[in-house]
């Protein structure tokens, strides 16, 4: 298993290099990086532009620029940003933490909901409850995340107006100034988390609950569950102890595999709730044509996705003794 893990990680290296290279070429070809500077009025002197070009390595040929960047990354230097006051490496670490907090809570909430709804649906297959849950799952599957997020935000604002003081925050990941100790900070962060977490969780909930239902149905129709029933175990015991445990295995994989989708979802959620996370970082960087910042984003996401895919495969082997990796 250890050699399998190492082999997978080794294979991942060229994939990351290739995908950053493709995006690097795309970003380079897709516009004039100093358009903002050159468009200034009065126009900056040729010397200012030359200095800026040198700072951003724009005086080097494209391939050499990529080489400079990738060798820099290995040494922990993520390259210069178009915005002079931004240190890409430091920025991306801070923002990754913010986004990860959002995703982690959303995953827990989505999983809990999906497992409960999926199992209840499967146990009561073709009942009114099952049809109701199916419709709800399809509805969330078809709901544009940004629309739903704005809807939630609006609901939050209405609730705050109704109560007369802010119960749930609708902007940012934390208050600018928090009075009090650790507890006050936790409460503050928590009430900022509520709406974005719900918004992000319900996007995944639709697909996951369908998946859990299908997986549970598979198990419920298997011989060993029939046998457990036949030997006289209670229905409840069979469902919880025998069926659910097996039906959770594919769920573990799907959750890890969906990590990439969650990061994309977080881009939208962060935009709506004005969090300063990875999503906001990407949108601003694209907007500023900040090539190295976009690359840094891609690098972090690509590595995270590869790690989570690997975790998915390893979890599979760990949970299901029939699967062994050589």
């Amino acid at each position, binding site marked *: 298993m250890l050699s399998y893990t190492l082999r997978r990680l080794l294979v991942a290296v060229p*994939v990351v290099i290739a995908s950053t290279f493709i995006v690097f070429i795309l970003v380079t070809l*897709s516009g004039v990086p100093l358009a903002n500077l050159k468009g200034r009025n009065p126009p900056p002197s040729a010397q200012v532009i030359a200095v800026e070009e040198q700072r951003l390595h724009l005086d080097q040929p494209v391939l050499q620029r990529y080489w400079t960047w990738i060798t820099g990354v290995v040494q922990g230097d993520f390259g210069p940003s178009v915005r002079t006051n931004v240190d890409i490496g430091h920025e991306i670490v801070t923002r990754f933490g913010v986004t990860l907090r959002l995703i982690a809570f959303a995953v827990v909430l989505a999983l809990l909901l999906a497992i409960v709804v999926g199992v209840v649906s499967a146990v009561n297959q073709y009942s009114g409850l099952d049809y109701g849950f199916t419709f709800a799952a399809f509805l969330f599957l*078809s*709901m*544009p995340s*940004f629309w739903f997020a*704005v809807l939630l935000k609006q609901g939050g604002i209405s609730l705050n107006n109704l109560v007369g003081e802010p119960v749930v925050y609708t902007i940012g990941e934390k208050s600018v100034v928090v009075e009090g100790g650790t507890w006050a900070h936790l409460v503050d962060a928590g009430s900022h988390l509520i709406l974005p977490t719900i918004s992000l969780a319900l996007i995944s909930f639709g697909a996951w609950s369908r998946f859990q239902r299908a997986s549970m149905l598979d198990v419920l129709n298997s011989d060993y569950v029939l046998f457990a029933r036949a030997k006289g175990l209670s229905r409840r015991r069979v469902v919880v102890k025998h069926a659910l445990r097996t039906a959770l295995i594919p769920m573990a994989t799907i959750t890890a595999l969906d990590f990439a989708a969650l990061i994309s979802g977080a881009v939208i959620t962060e935009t709506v709730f004005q969090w300063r996370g990875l999503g906001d970082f990407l949108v601003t960087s694209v*907007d500023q044509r900040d090539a190295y910042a976009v690359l840094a984003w891609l690098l972090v996401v*690509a590595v995270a996705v*590869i790690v989570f895919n690997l975790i998915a495969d390893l979890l599979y082997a760990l949970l299901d003794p029939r699967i062994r990796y050589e």
Partner: protein
Amino acid sequence: MSEHVDAVTGPAAPTAVSTGVRERSQRELVLRRFLRHKAAVISLVLFVAIVVLAFVGGALWRYDYADITPDASVPPSAEHPFGTDNLGHDTFAQVLRGTQRSIEIALLIAFLAGLFGTLWGAFSGYYRGLTDSVMMRIADLVLTLPLLAVAAVLTRATSGSWWFVALVIAALQWAYVSRVVRGVVLSLREKEYIEASRALGATDRWIIFRHLIPNALGPIIVNITILVAAAILVETALSFLGLGVQPPDTSLGLLVSEADTAVSTRPWLFYFPGAFIVLIALTINFIGDGLRDAFDPTQRKVRA
């Protein structure tokens, strides 16, 4: 799928006719199973109605999406069923126009990604070996590129015309289709009728286009349907971030994004385009579900 039908319509056919039972073609069976899925049929009717409303109704409606009427920021009324925005644009006309654009983009994506993904997957699965490895590694690479980031970078660089947005999304989505098709082709290519065809001297191209792709059509169609629903959501999300379709053109995502700040003051600007996105994606998802049941009765989720 069809080798099973060949067996039925082959030697068994005369006896079936003589007993007075009419044989059913594969197409008929699929259609009958689809019609049994109530949600899918209702969705199909609704979806066709939306398409007709957007393309025919949009042309007949008394306002054009770019018209500026003297009524600014009026709530829904008989004159303006979906109200107007602060410049006096008729929201109903804009939603119809946005629906047209979003559907056009989604269908173009489905066509391009479906066609390319099918060919890629079929060749990869048929030839196996080194060809397969190289082709699938390329598909994997495309799958690792985060759609939102690449699409954002590329559409930012251009004028953001609707077909370009479609092209970019399709260029990143075909890999999903190719994986599915490859999987199906890998198992189909081992069937006896392929061996028979090869023994009769069929060329590779003949086998791929006459046998493999037609028999993989069920999963392909189902996946393309899901692709259309996903494409609608991706396009609207991009336009919402300001990285998709650009004004003066419009799409449902752009309309929602423009209404983002007006939810509490002029809610109609926000709810109507959003509801159309939900309705379109929902109906397509249900149609896809019905098609899956129809093509693959072994995985049936609806009682026959």
